[in-house]
């Protein structure tokens, strides 16, 4: 065996923002203020986080992303990959995000309304810059529907069909948020991962449900190439970033 290797699980901080404040809810509702986004992102960077995702939690409602100035300021002191999501609705939005210093954009709501937008985005900016963000709820036993506008609206799209499509369109990664787990700290949604895993051939990030380091270790044992996006567990100090690296090899 070769000694050199690339870690497959990335530990990513997910920072949801509303009106310049980091917020956190449960099942994407009941949002509480947590603090200043740049301060919090910088802290996670210093502690050794692999990547950072900023999501504008109310952007899709107002049809615009309001985080460019935060990214612009953050990248002066944060030297790990940065993703921006929420309210991305045009190639101009993507260009603005990348110019402000983001490495990738996460696209959800608008893509469910006009799927070809993902293809156009990939053609213009390359696969590695485009993440398909998928919010989903289990609507009947082992059947999941895609949601939009931070889990507020149904789309009528089956999650398995959607996962196939976003990969066909060339997205570089999938960020999956099972809404029923989001903010609950009860563990990751392994049911949906079991269901979709064999049909995902691009990097997959699971977001929502992590409450302790055991959840990450358990996930890693079963799916060694799935990455995690952490919010509550970092914001409320349930998990120490350095600790994760010691335990996940």
């Amino acid at each position: 065996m070769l000694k050199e290797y690339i870690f497959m699980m990335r530990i990513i901080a997910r920072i949801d923002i509303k009106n310049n404040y980091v917020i956190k809810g449960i099942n994407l509702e009941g949002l509480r203020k947590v603090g200043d986004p740049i301060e919090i992102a910088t802290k996670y960077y210093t502690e050794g986080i692999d990547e950072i995702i900023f999501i504008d939690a109310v952007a899709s409602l107002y049809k615009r992303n309001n985080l460019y100035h935060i990214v612009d300021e953050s990248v002066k002191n944060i030297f790990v990959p940065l993703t921006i999501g929420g309210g991305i609705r045009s190639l101009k939005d993507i260009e603005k995000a990348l110019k402000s210093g983001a490495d990738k954009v996460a696209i959800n709501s608008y893509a469910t309304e006009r799927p070809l937008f993902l293809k156009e985005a990939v053609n213009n900016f390359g696969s590695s810059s485009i993440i398909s963000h998928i919010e989903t709820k289990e609507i009947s036993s082992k059947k999941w529907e895609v949601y939009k506008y931070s889990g507020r609206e149904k789309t009528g799209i089956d999650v398995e069909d959607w996962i196939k499509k976003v990969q066909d369109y060339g997205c570089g990664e999938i960020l999956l948020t099972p809404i029923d787990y989001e903010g609950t700290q009860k563990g990751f949604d392994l049911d949906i991962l079991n269901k979709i895993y064999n049909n995902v051939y691009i990097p997959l990030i699971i977001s929502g449900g992590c409450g302790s380091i055991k959840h990450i270790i358990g996930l890693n044992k079963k799916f060694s190439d799935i990455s995690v996006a952490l919010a509550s567990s970092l914001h409320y100090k349930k998990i120490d970033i350095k600790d994760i690296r010691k335990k996940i090899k």
Partner: protein
Amino acid sequence: MKKICILDYGLGNIKSLYNSLNKIGYKPTFASESKKKNYDIIFIPGVGSFSNGSKLIKKKYLNFLNHSFNKGISLFGICLGMQLLLSEGEENGLNKGLNFVDGKVVKLTNKNKIKLPIVGWGKVNFKKKKEYSFLSKYQNEKFYFIHSYVASLKDKKNELSKSSYNGISYTSAIIKKNCVGTQFHPEKSGEVGLEFLKDWIKRL
């Protein structure tokens, strides 16, 4: 103060590269806004496809780069920027690169059913080369990678490092005369990446 240039040909996160060089004490200029040619080092960033990148860079900077290469000015390619230093690439059909280093850019074979693109932090196994012995301190450090294509070199002596992903071993940095290229992103690899850039520039 070393004179640093960042090539802006429309692809890649030039802001992050600018900020990281700024952080370690340099004031880089963008090639598109300056005609000066007395640089110590020229960075070629890049994210996107080889086909698109090779067209854009040759259209704007072919003479500038050829001239700089022949003058012995240090060229540092990052990710797609590294790939463009090679002779040709097979992404979206065969396209000619800058041809400073003999080799081809090929897609990683996926018989192991690995997820592509490779996205993650990995170790870089630098080859023992006398001139670059300072790199040994990075042997156990991690750098950030994001790519689906890799360099396939004609001459193995141009290989500066290897990395591996899920059992597949590939060239992760290249070197030839005044040309260096990294498949990983030092500007996105935290404090270690900054240190790496600093060490590289310092010895010019």
